[in-house]
């Protein structure tokens, strides 16, 4: 049986990707950010997941306004990095896990979550930056990845509760997969940031830290939080954090906090990072 071994949360700021791609990681501004992901790489090396499900959002790269799926599951064999205006990021092509992805689609749709199945998709910084943060810059990513793209660009995104419940359904799907696989699920995006309009630059560390506490402890309050509260308190684009609830939903009610890191800023954004494991029983 396959099982979900950990939930890994992190921001996916494009400037972090640019710092990696342009060799700026040693500059003081960036060492502050990357120092928070050194221990992470050791943890991931030890965890050695067989597959990662990465919950992220596309930023007008793969999806224009022509088609806007609320939840889109990547079922392809591979996902090339998207050209976001500066050429595709020089990172390895992301290899999928079509067999497990097909199983998840089959399972969660019958479980009443009406996913969109995607068999051809490029992936942008939303997916590739977290891979760099967890695994560094290898020649090939260490394991297959199943992208789950969530619409958080066009309002309204799915509710936090819906995201959490989908995470629970994904867990049921994974646990009904016959092969023994260790699966890690990533929640990405956030934390507080606003990059649009006269209020751009908003950062709310108090909100962010309470959100991390909610994920690590009892998530019921953050699950119930309405969209307007995310936008008012954590910035218009801070709404991305609803995606973290998919990953939290795939875990036990009680979890152990393995690692946490938080810093402000990376470009316009607060960077948060958390690794949760199911509490030992």
């Amino acid at each position, binding site marked *: 049986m396959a099982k979900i071994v950990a939930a890994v949360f992190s921001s996916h700021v494009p400037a972090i990707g640019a710092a990696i791609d342009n060799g700026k990681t040693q500059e003081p501004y960036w060492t502050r950010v990357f120092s928070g992901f050194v221990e992470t790489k050791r943890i991931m090396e030890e965890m050695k997941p067989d597959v990662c499900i990465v919950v992220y959002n596309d930023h007008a790269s793969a999806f224009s306004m022509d088609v806007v799926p609320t939840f889109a599951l990547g079922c392809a064999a591979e996902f090339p990095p998207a050209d976001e205006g500066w050429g595709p990021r020089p990172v390895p092509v992301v290899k999928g896990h079509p067999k497990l992805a097909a199983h998840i689609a089959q399972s969660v749709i019958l479980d009443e979550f009406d996913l969109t199945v995607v068999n051809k998709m490029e992936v942008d910084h939303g997916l590739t930056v977290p891979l760099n943060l967890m695994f560094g810059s290898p020649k090939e990513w260490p394991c297959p990845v199943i992208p789950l793209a969530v619409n958080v660009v*066009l309002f309204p995104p799915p509710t936090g509760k819906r995201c959490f419940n989908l995470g629970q359904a994904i867990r049921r799907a994974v646990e009904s997969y016959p092969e023994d696989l260790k699966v890690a699920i990533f929640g990405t995006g956030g934390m507080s940031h606003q*990059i*649009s*309009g006269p*209020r751009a*630059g*908003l950062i709310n560390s108090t909100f962010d830290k309470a959100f991390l506490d909610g994920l690590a402890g009892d998530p019921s309050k953050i699950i119930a939080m309405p969209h307007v509260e995310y936008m008012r308190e954590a910035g218009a684009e801070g709404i991305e954090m609803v995606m973290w609830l998919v990953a939290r939903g795939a875990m036990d009610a009680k979890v152990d906090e393995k690692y946490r890191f938080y810093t402000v800023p990376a470009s316009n954004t607060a960077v948060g990072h958390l690794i949760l494991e199911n509490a030992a029983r």
Partner: protein
Amino acid sequence: MTDAKKEYDDIPGTFVFDQERSRQGYGVNAFCMTLMKDENRKAFRANESAYLDQFGLTPEQKESILKRQWNRMLELGGNIYFTAKLAATDGLSFQQVAAIMTGATQQEYADMMLAGGRNPNGNRSKAEWSKK
């Protein structure tokens, strides 16, 4: 369902890209999306006005793009991830456009971010902004 009250309209300095804005702004965002291709960027630069005529824009939308009124574009249905492609075409970074939208200089904005960003206190409601 009623759409009588949109609670988020009270968030100051913010244009929430909702279904209504996205309906109005389809052309703006469709235009921005074409800027992913270099040949289109060249065609746009060669004659901005003629290029824009392909997208069924309102005169206000067209003017906001020609004049690079970044906030106005959002107000008229553009979305930041799309208008960012126009910014990139102009050689501007995300942070540079953000600075312009807030009315700050590049340096002021970068300093604000380094100092921890814009504090949410005083920035939660339109009433708070009108007192400033």
